[in-house]
């Protein structure tokens, strides 16, 4: 009976996925875009012949051509291979920062929301304050305190993100705590920890996934913004924010490619994450669907 039912579920899942793709072309587009970006980032060293760090001064500031698809920068480095290398770094920062804040935030939020009481109220207050404070400023200060390095950039991005997960997990758990099926779980002999982990967590995971998807875009924006200001990651490491900051000096002489390509890569990635987050949300809550 079990195998038979799993098979049926898989088929049902597949047809649901197909129907979803047909009805949500935008989400499908975002997902394929992201897949493409990830593949390009991973295969970067294979695709390009150039070392993203190797300078070639005689060929500096060349506009895009067949040799250098995205042109070269002031030291003659190949912009295309730098954009790809930066994708690797930025995605890695975003994924590890969001993963870190999600793990901590969801755990804290779930238990806080489930148990309630004064501890929960204090958590709530702290989270409210943190999320309303200018987070970019906080990230700047954190990087300043911790020092310039990729890890510290990840930590500071994680720290400014995790109040959001606490808040969402708390709200979602608190909203379900009094529901019939949670009371029923009590009556069926489940203890509090089991109810949180086996009943509540799986039910709030979709909402968390939406938040994570939106947050990934935001984490990239944050990391690139900090690097743009010269915080966190430093030259010559290829990173989109630094590349834009660097290229800005050459905009006035008409060398647009130094800003436009890393800028577009940044925008495309954030766009895909956001569209995917929106699509996931629509999938979960058909009421908000247009």
């Amino acid at each position: 009976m079990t195998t038979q039912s799993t098979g049926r579920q898989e088929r049902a899942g597949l047809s649901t996925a197909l129907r979803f793709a047909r009805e949500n072309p935008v989400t499908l587009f975002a997902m394929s875009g992201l897949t493409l970006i990830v593949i390009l980032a991973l295969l970067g060293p294979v695709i390009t012949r150039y070392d993203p760090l190797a300078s070639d001064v005689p060929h500096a500031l060349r506009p895009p051509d067949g040799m250098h698809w995205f042109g070269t920068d002031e030291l003659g480095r190949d912009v295309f291979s730098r954009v790809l290398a930066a994708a690797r770094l930025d995605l890695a920062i975003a994924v590890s920062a969001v993963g870190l804040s999600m793990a901590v935030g969801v755990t804290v939020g779930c238990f806080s929301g489930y148990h309630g009481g004064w501890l929960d109220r204090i958590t709530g207050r702290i989270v409210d304050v943190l999320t309303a404070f200018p987070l970019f400023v906080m990230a700047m200060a954190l990087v300043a305190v911790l020092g310039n390095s990729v890890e510290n950039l990840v930590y500071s991005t994680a720290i400014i993100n995790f109040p959001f997960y606490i808040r969402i997990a708390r709200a979602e758990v608190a909203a379900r705590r009094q529901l019939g099926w949670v009371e029923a779980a009590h009556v069926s002999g489940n203890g509090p920890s089991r109810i949180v982990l086996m009943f509540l967590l799986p039910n709030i995971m979709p909402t968390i996934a939406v938040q994570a998807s939106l947050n990934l875009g935001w984490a990239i924006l944050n990391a690139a913004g900090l690097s743009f200001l010269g915080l966190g990651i430093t030259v010559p490491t290829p990173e989109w924010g630094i590349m834009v900051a660097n290229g800005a000096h050459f905009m006035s002489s008409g060398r647009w490619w130094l800003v436009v390509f890393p800028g577009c890569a940044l925008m495309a990635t954030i766009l895909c994450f956001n569209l995917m987050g929106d699509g996931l949300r629509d999938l979960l809550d058909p009421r908000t669907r247009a």
Partner: protein
Amino acid sequence: MTPPILEVEDLRVSFTSPRGVSEVLHGISLSLQRGQILALVGESGSGKSVTGLSVMGLLPRQASITRGCIRFDGREITHRVPRELRGAGMAMVFQNPRAALNPTRRIRNQLADVILAHEKPTAAELHRRLAELMEQVSIADKARCLAAYPHELSGGLCQRIVIAMAIACSPDLIIADEPTTGLDVLTQKAIMDLLLDLTRARGMSMILVTHDLGMAAQYCDDVAVMNKGYIVESGRDPHALFLDPGDAYTRRLVNACPTEQSRLGPQSVSVPPASAAPLLDVRNLVKTYGRDFRAVDDVSFTIGRGESLGLIGESGSGKSTISRLVSRLINPDGGQILFGGQPIGQMPADHFYRTPLRRQIQFVFQDAAGSLNPRFTAFDAIADPIRRLQQGETSELGERVIACARSVGLPEGLLNRYPHQMSGGQCARVGIARAIAVDPQLLILDEPTAALDVLVQAEVLALLERLRREKGMSYLFVSHDLHVVRMLCSRMLILRHGKVVESGSCEEIFRQPRDAYTIDLLSAIPHFRPTGNGA
């Protein structure tokens, strides 16, 4: 004879969704004379609300009238209802009155908005009109109500305000869509009496959309029974129609409707010998919320083995709190709960799941679909208490779950479905199967049929009665519906504001209620069978 105020001819309405087009009204025809009150009766999904909304031109965007014709006072309004007509020609009263009023606008302004939308009275005239309206809907404390925001008023008062808005511009037709759902029995009667009086006094017509046959019979001249988008039967005098239905569906509906005469087969309540120790003994139970709100105030009762006790009360009477106290979901603030002679009131609710008594006290929840974990299949839901409470016997888990499902009449094929893939009745059966899976001695049922349509309710009640007899369980049955309690219980307890106002055997209380509140409660229930005239 004057032309009818409202004529509906062969009305078809379809909903468009990404999944396709589905027709929800398959050509219905109605005709309503001036001064006449028509009941549209049916279960949820029968299309009765859609009919009302179509007439008002308030169908949601994705719905459209595909065929047929609606004429109001001889004027064709099928596809476009002029704005002036709404409010001045016909008005609608909805269920859930608190949500029907703008939360950020004072009552005075909301009423004035309606009048100003259709007329241009002077300030003094407007003021006088508002005062008049408040009188007409029998609101005594005029000034306070007019200055209030909706959240400061009770549900009953809010519904009076909505009715005042509806009659403000003297429409010829009022459509009342379940106007008393969610209100208490006594308020329900007051609101319906008010609507009836106003309609009669002003010579208006009314369409009452309701699921309650008793209400239809008591307040309407005419009735149309709807099922799945068709009018299956209609006629003058609902009493006569319900007593002698011509249509098979109507007959099933009427028979399923709990009334004073309804019985669940032969009454075989085994009254335990008085000397035997009761299974559950609740003494002076108290639960306080906030500083001084006593939700349960010194309540005592007993339930014998194999006995079922009904707990009756309106919303806020503390009946749900008692059910949760007894099932040890929350902690009492005073009093004792003895289960089989063992005090269980003092154990913290958070730790009760570890005691062996957990499996003896099980619970069936009000909202069946909402009491099932959306991520569990029916199988998992039923298996969960067995896994948790009867460890070491899981080898035969599959068989036990199937046996349980069979005993509640749940087809085996539904066991790998998720709650959203099942109907309300099927979810209710899963909820009951889960509760009886560990063979409890006491089953607490918190309005288990309140969210169900009347036909399904009848099936579930019959199932519960059969299970009780087969398994020898005791029931604590919580409900607001006196008739339902009477069908299932031998004794009942009537609660008000957290206190017991009357208790005794059901027969006695129905025959000779002593407390004034009980008498009110009994007389407020709408019914369609003349009392004293056994069917």
